[in-house]
């Protein structure tokens, strides 16, 4: 399948640009070029790597102060394990909801012919809402779905008592609802270029070969969107797992790992136990590293089909 308008610009441009200098200037001064990045590296080492490494050095302490893995083990057992399971569950749930609803919303916006401004509104609004974390988001949902919230009252008028079940803003269902507010728009931003990259001719080709809508999505559409969908899931998961500010205002639930870390840092624990707090942070860094690493690889793959 040769397509004449293969998305070329950025990547190929970069390759051409990158190739040119290596032909021309081949003198030994070239390695000196890395020295230009010293300030940047120094900055990252001082303000990002040293704090990150310190977390690990504190985490890898046994109770007697020697090197060991006991704190790291303790951070994933007992109550701490419960916290990780809870956080993993609601983050995965929030990511899944975000991927599905964000994907549908993006598709609805991309295919809607009228009104014309609709698509722009959806993508501009997503740019704003994807960044709306922190306090304002927590406040908005407290006033909508808190016990005395406006939405709670409206739902009550329709005969649905939200708080009769196990709905709480600080529990899984509530966190998923609140985090959807930034996860759905973030997913729209991830998936919209990929949806734009789906060519009408592919659908026509599929129809010509006797396929129906279902065949098209199963054999063509979804496989092409798969890297973007999976990448979006990882990004949304990492986003939900590491969110602190919103959760802090919604609840004191110490099963949320970032809150748990902050309780340890706040010093409400006995001496010697603080290594566990750092171990929680260390595990979090490891988890985020795996997610973002996989996301990085998937992004390279999904760029292939994206309309840029």
């Amino acid at each position, binding site marked *: 399948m040769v397509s004449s308008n293969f998305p070329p610009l950025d990547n190929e441009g970069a390759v051409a640009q*990158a190739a040119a200098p290596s032909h021309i200037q081949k003198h030994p001064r070239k390695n000196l070029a890395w020295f230009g990045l010293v*300030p940047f590296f120094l900055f990252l080492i001082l*303000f990002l790597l040293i704090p990150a490494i310190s977390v690990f050095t504190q985490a890898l302490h046994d109770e007697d102060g020697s090197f060991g893995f006991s704190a790291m083990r303790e951070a994933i057992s007992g109550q701490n394990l419960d916290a990780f399971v809870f956080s993993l569950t609601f983050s995965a749930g929030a990511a899944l909801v975000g991927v599905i609803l964000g994907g549908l919303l993006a598709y609805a916006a991309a295919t809607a012919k009228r009104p014309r401004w609709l698509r722009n509104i959806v993508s501009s609004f997503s740019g704003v809402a994807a960044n709306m974390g922190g*306090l304002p988001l927590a*406040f908005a949902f407290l006033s909508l779905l808190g016990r005395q919230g406006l*939405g709670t009252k409206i739902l009550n008028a329709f005969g649905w008592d939200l708080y009769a079940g196990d709905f709480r803003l600080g529990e899984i269902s509530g966190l998923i609802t609140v985090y959807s507010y930034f996860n759905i728009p973030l997913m729209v931003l991830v998936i919209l270029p990929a949806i734009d990259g789906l060519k009408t001719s592919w659908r026509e080709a599929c129809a010509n070969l006797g396929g129906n809508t279902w065949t098209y999505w199963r054999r063509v559409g979804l496989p092409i969107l798969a890297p973007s969908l999976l990448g979006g899931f990882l*990004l949304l998961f990492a986003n939900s797992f*590491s969110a602190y500010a919103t959760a802090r205002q919604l609840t004191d639930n110490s099963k949320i790992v970032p809150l748990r870390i902050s309780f340890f840092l706040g010093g409400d624990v006995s001496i010697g136990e603080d290594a566990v707090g750092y171990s929680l942070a260390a595990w*979090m860094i490891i988890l*985020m590293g795996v997610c973002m690493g996989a996301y990085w690889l998937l992004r390279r793959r999904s760029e292939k089909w994206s309309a840029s």
Partner: protein
Amino acid sequence: MNNPRFRQLLGRSVPTLILLASGIFFTFPLIAMARFAFQNLQVIDLGWNNLFDKWSFSSVTASFSDEFFSEALTLSLKLAVGTALFTLGLLIPTAVWVHLRLPKARVFVEFLTILPYVIPAIALVAGIVVVKPHARWFLNSDYSLIPFYVVLALPFTYRSIDAGLRSIDLKVLVEASRSLGSTWLATLFRVIIPNLRAAIISSTFLTVAVVLGEYTISDVLLKRTFPSFMAQYRQSDPRGGYALAIMALIGTTFLFVAIGVLSRSRSTKLQSNSPQLKNEILT
């Protein structure tokens, strides 16, 4: 099910329903927050007959007169300016250098700039707490937050500047400037920076938005920034706290809309990527 008219109807109404439901989900929390902040009426007492009673901005004006309000806002604004300047001073030379001399390091540097996602704010602040006893002279100052805020904004700011550099023919501009006898410094200030205006403005707005919304580090380190003040003020006066949050939200929304407009006018002219906070990392 296979009736073509039914399917057509389905094909039209499903997207409309999705868009409508999304509209409700995304506007209702904001409406509820605004009502709570600006209408002095308990939800229990609210009904159709008093829906428009007792609206006022008294909660905002009351919060303005709190003794710590201006202190916190000033600190956050100073941090925002400091972070923006630090970011530009660090990233423009680095990005220009990468584009001119080390194109092969591009992917590597880009990879480094997403590290703040791997080490989220709560983990970063855990590290700061560890380091603190060894660097009290530095970390006791409120302004020590600046470099860490530079780190938090890095994924967005670097991408914005990188996109700006991609959209101009940097090599030709620099060669022209140099061959006309200009020094490196003059080239940077009189050729490169004026051409990067849009990227510089959007990266500055992104920085300001990040700094004015940052809560994690400032909460754990007990710094009195604007978000910390907001959280604290809510304890004593919930309506005032919510009103402040709305103000902050309007401010940052304005910044993002401005970035959107800036990048759109630039991308129609020069075909570059549009820099916005979160989608920068994706495109």
